[in-house]
């Protein structure tokens, strides 16, 4: 299945959002996820099924104010 993660198209072999995070090997602490422009609460990552062409944004925090 193909999904867009942070703007990049990726071929992935998983079914849920939680699995995607695992596959990407990301630190789960203090990140947040948007699926097709809607936030997905952390509690729903396991139950959130992905489908082809889904657009996922995964964010964390960095130093900085304006830009």
């Amino acid at each position, binding site marked *: 299945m193909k999904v867009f993660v942070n703007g990049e198209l990726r071929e992935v072999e998983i079914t849920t959002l939680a699995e995607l995070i695992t596959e990407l090997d990301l630190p789960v*602490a203090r990140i947040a996820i948007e699926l097709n422009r809607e*936030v997905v609460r952390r509690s729903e990552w396991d139950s959130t099924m992905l489908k082809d062409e889904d657009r996922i944004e995964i964010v*964390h*925090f960095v*130093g900085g104010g*304006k830009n």
Partner: protein
Amino acid sequence: MIIAGRQFSSRLIIGTGKYRSYEQMRSAHEASGAEMVTIAVRRVPLDRSSESFLDYLNPSLQILPNTAGCYTAEDAVRTARLAREALQTDLLKLEVIGDQTTLFPDNEQTLEAARILVKEGFVVLPYFNDDLIMAKKLLDAGCAAIMPLAAPIGSGLGVQNPANLRIMREQLPDATMIVDAGVGTASDAAIAMELGADGVLMNTAIAESEDPAKMATAMKLAIEAGRLAYEAGRMPKRLYASASSPLTGVIR
């Protein structure tokens, strides 16, 4: 300084950008006495394992996520929701930028985003151009404070329009007014406070000074000094001298 009913003993809110090292940032935060720190939301890099920036912040600091980098109300709203989900805080420094060269705020889009976010329960602290009418609208929209700029972000020019801030203070006596962006040195911060600001948010003036920890201390003291001077009620200005000792009894 009171924000959404919460009392802060420090009137300084500090940034996290432009430091030469995390150690330097931490020592500056320490020296500043700030209780709140603002951070930005960005995509996680997928190519490399990224250390968590948050680990470098003193855990006792209240984190204030910002929507830096957003150019539309919609992007700011999305960014705000992500920040809340990740940090479990309703506090938000709202920034909607109107132009990449000047980084001036887009007051119109900022107001639109503020209206949405307040409805969603955010405690919105909006960065905006120093415009009284916009300040009133932001407060009517339910913002917890107003954050007019002193000068362009990172310019270090200091308060460019004291009349605007003074008028804002006089016309909105009950609002929490935090001067955001443009402060360059200690006296700039003192001036902002003497104009009646409740606090100052800054980043570059500290991070880009030659000695950030020392400048952070200077800012801490300047903000206290400016506030006390505002409360103490300054002497009137006069063009002409006025003697400070009795005119009689001089030897002849």
